[in-house]
């Protein structure tokens, strides 16, 4: 199992070497065997008596993260889809991509994606699932931007990346919450603890976060906007990622977590509600598109919405219908994308307005498209699998669970009508896709290339998929008990036995299907008459506009915010820093009652010290008002000498000495520098700025005073200086305690203080000597 998941990634490491010979042999041929082998390996598990099993490999045991691979019916269905369609897409891409392309890159990304997708559907550990999930986002980003010299490709790739990664991150949040609540990282264990999760207060949050991940990945409304832009990718990528596999990852996620949430009514409301809106909106918008791949993109969106709706129903029949439609949609949608790619390849255009009447030129493609589109439309013919799942969809929408909430009750009655409404448009765009491309009159002169039938190799893959469509249509029960029943069981948590039959007798679903066909045909014929309904919603309200506005707006506002405070003015920065210090410290001190004053244990006040203090204050104030350089230096010197005198008063001879010497040198330095500098000008600031500065400064000074007084008033511990006093002579061998501390007890301070001085000296030397004599440009 581990090998099956990681072998594509392993092979990807050798692709660069293999792509060296791409002129002799197409790189895709080497790649082709990888998904084929995986497909064959997993085929052996199909059978009526298949039981889930798991393989565990240790990865990060301390965090409970291990590579747990769990294979049940749901995973098996997805694994077969991924590897099977992966094989066909690789085969198709061999003929689609020319040897002049960068094949190495393409297949490395593709194999990376394959590993990621297999990992997503096989992982039982939520964090491993998340890792693979993000790997699908990244490889999808790389594949969409494969033709990176096109601006549209880059735009589409970035868009899909932002939206899916946004969802992926919310999903991670949901997983973390689930892990905390259940105490386990395994999905199966979580499912067994459903009661714990359902009674947790975080339940709505968990569900919202996980569903965000699923909706963004599966292009549900309103996150569907990335999918039409992802059509800039090469067609094999669109066929593989954006129809069969990656966009179903969200579906898989909802299906996998269904057993936990189905009894929670909001799950039905949100999942089915969003699903049905997506179904209606996607099919309605698909009719408007002119690009073949655009139609298919919106069609994919609406079909995914349909599957999502069924998963939200939470009944056994709906689970079965959902997995059946997952399989069917993958077959016909993959083939349709490939046919669209063939048309693009052979005519040079995908614009449906330029195409038409290609039936005579491309008979085989036309036949394939006919089956594909009719199956997508759900035309009631016994050899089209799309009809069966659509019929089941109608059937299940009529038999919903009883609702308790009002909104759920409203949805119960409304969903069948909306389903029919969306299906009518599905019918219209399917017909439009087929007849608009292959019938009518041709415009051969307008096309870049002269159309002709595609090479045989290109047709193999879509043909195989269409054969799948027909086989499932003719004998639907061959996939029923062996595969679909197990998958549905994994979703609903109990055994599902459902017989698929073409003829149910005259019941409601049949009439619904007939309504779809009749109304759809009428609408298709009259489509030019109702085109104007698309003008009801003006273009500036479109979701793409909203996305662009969010992107541009966030860029603009963050620039604005940054420029508002990062204005390059040092005064602004210092003011911000001081204000922040003030706010934090004051609030801390007030909330903890830190400010205290104790008037006992104070030294007595003497007149001499007061006098010195007053002199210092006056001198310090003088620096603010000084205009003349020399005056400013001298009064700054007065402050320094005043401090030295205070040191004398307070029995600190060494300090007084040092302070005197340093102050003298500093004054000398100042004189040296100031002599060459412009005079201190009177400040030209406005009164307001002065007031702000003064307020900040006074606030800070007051804060420091209060801190000093409080610290002095609350002595909690005795001083450790007694130790120095007692041991200075015996241990340090000196009588000057301060000096012994400096060079003996705490010598390292002194060592690095010397280093500081040395560095300052070197820097000053450098600054004075090293000059850019060439002049500043």
């Amino acid at each position, binding site marked *: 199992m581990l090998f099956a998941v990681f072998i594509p990634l392993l092979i990807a490491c050798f692709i660069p070497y293999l792509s060296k010979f791409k002129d002799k042999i197409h790189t895709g041929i080497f790649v082709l065997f990888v998904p084929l082998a995986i497909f064959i390996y997993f085929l052996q598990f199909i059978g009526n008596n298949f039981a889930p099993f798991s393989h565990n490999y240790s990865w990060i045991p301390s965090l409970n993260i291990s590579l747990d691979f769990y294979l049940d019916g749901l995973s098996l269905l997805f694994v077969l889809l991924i590897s099977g369609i992966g094989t066909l897409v690789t085969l198709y891409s061999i003929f689609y991509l020319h040897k002049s392309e960068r094949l190495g890159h393409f297949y490395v990304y593709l194999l990376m994606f394959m590993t990621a997708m297999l990992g997503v559907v096989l992982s039982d550990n939520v964090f491993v699932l998340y890792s693979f999930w993000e790997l699908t986002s990244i490889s999808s980003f790389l594949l969409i931007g494969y033709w990176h010299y096109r601006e549209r490709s880059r735009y589409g790739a970035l868009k899909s990346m932002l939206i899916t990664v946004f969802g992926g991150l919310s999903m991670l949040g949901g997983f973390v919450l689930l892990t905390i609540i259940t105490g386990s990282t395994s999905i199966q264990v979580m499912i067994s603890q459903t009661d714990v999760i359902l009674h947790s207060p975080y339940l709505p949050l968990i569900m919202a976060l996980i569903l965000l991940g699923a909706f963004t990945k599966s292009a549900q409304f309103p996150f569907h906007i990335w999918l039409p832009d992802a059509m800039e990718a090469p067609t094999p990528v669109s066929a593989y990622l954006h129809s069969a596999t990656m966009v179903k990852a969200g579906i898989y996620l909802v299906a996998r977590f269904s057993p936990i949430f189905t009894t929670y009514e909001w799950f039905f409301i949100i999942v089915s509600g969003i699903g049905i809106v997506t179904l209606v909106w996607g099919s309605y918008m698909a009719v408007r598109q002119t690009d073949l791949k655009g139609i298919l993109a919106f069609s994919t969106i609406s079909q995914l919405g349909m599957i999502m709706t069924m998963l939200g129903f939470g009944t056994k029949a709906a689970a079965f219908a959902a997995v059946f439609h997952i399989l069917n949609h993958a077959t016909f949608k993959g083939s349709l994308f490939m046919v669209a790619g063939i048309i693009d390849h052979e005519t040079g255009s995908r614009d449906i307005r330029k195409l038409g009447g290609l039936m005579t030129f491309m008979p085989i493609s036309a036949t394939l498209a006919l089956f594909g589109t009719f199956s997508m439309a759900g035309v009631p013919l016994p050899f089209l699998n799309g009809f069966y799942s659509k019929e089941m969809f109608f059937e299940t929408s009529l038999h919903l669970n009883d609702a308790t909430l009002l909104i759920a009750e409203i949805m119960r009655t409304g969903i069948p009508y909306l389903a029919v409404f969306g299906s009518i448009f599905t019918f219209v765009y399917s017909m439009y896709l087929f007849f608009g491309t292959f019938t009518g009159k041709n415009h051969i002169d307008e096309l870049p290339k002269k159309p002709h039938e595609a090479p045989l190799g290109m047709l193999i893959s879509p043909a195989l998929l269409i054969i799948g469509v027909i086989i499932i249509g003719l004998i639907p029960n061959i996939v029923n008990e062996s595969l679909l029943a197990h998958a549905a069981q994994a979703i609903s948590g109990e055994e599902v036995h459902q017989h698929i039959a073409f003829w149910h007798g005259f019941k409601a679903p049949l009439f619904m299907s007939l309504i779809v066909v009749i109304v759809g045909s009428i609408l298709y014929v009259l489509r030019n008459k109702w085109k104007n309904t698309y003008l009801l919603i003006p273009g500036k309200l479109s979701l793409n506009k909203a996305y662009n506005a969010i992107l541009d707006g966030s860029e603009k506002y963050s620039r604005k915010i940054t420029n508002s405070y990062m204005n390059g003015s040092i005064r602004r920065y210092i003011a911000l820093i001081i204000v922040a210090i003030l706010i934090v410290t004051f609030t801390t001190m007030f909330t903890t009652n830190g400010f205290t004053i104790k008037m006992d244990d104070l030294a007595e006040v003497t007149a001499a010290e007061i006098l010195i203090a007053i002199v210092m204050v006056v001198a310090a104030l003088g620096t603010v008002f000084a205009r003349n350089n020399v005056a400013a230096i001298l009064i700054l010197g007065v*402050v320094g000498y005043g401090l030295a005198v205070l040191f004398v008063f*307070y029995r600190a001879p*060494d300090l007084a000495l040092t302070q005197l010497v340093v102050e003298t040198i500093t004054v000398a330095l100042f004189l040296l520098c100031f002599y060459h500098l412009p005079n201190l000008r009177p400040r030209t600031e406005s009164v307001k700025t002065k007031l702000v500065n003064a307020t900040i400064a*006074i606030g800070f*000074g007051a804060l420091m005073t209060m801190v000093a007084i409080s*610290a002095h008033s609350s002595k909690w511990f005795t*001083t450790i200086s007694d130790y120095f006093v007692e041991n200075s002579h015996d241990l340090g061998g000196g009588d000057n305690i301060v000096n012994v501390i400096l060079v003996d007890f705490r010598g390292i301070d002194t060592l690095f203080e010397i280093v500081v001085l040395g560095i300052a000296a070197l820097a000053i030397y450098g600054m004075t000597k090293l000059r850019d004599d060439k002049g500043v440009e």
Partner: protein
Amino acid sequence: MEIIMSILAGILFTIGIYNLLQKQLLRIVIGTALISHGAHLFILTMGKLKRGAPPILEYGISEYSDPLPQALILTSIVISFGVTSLLLVLAYRASKENNTDNMDQLRGNENE
């Protein structure tokens, strides 16, 4: 006395910060020097003022003033001296190179 010294330190801080918020390079350097003085006074006040003899051992004296803050201040004085001299020379060179000592004109404007 400690209260008065705390207030004095606070005043030195105030004036230092006020100078720091000015436009002229030199006033900023003066501001840093004043803040250093305030900090030294602050540390000294944290020990007890005027308790006992200067911290030099003599026979027969048992009470000395606290030597530890003094050692800390001594280190600090030297470091702030180094920093101040570096700042001064930096200010001198900066204003010589750019022909201005006004901080408003010394902004980096490449991102505006």
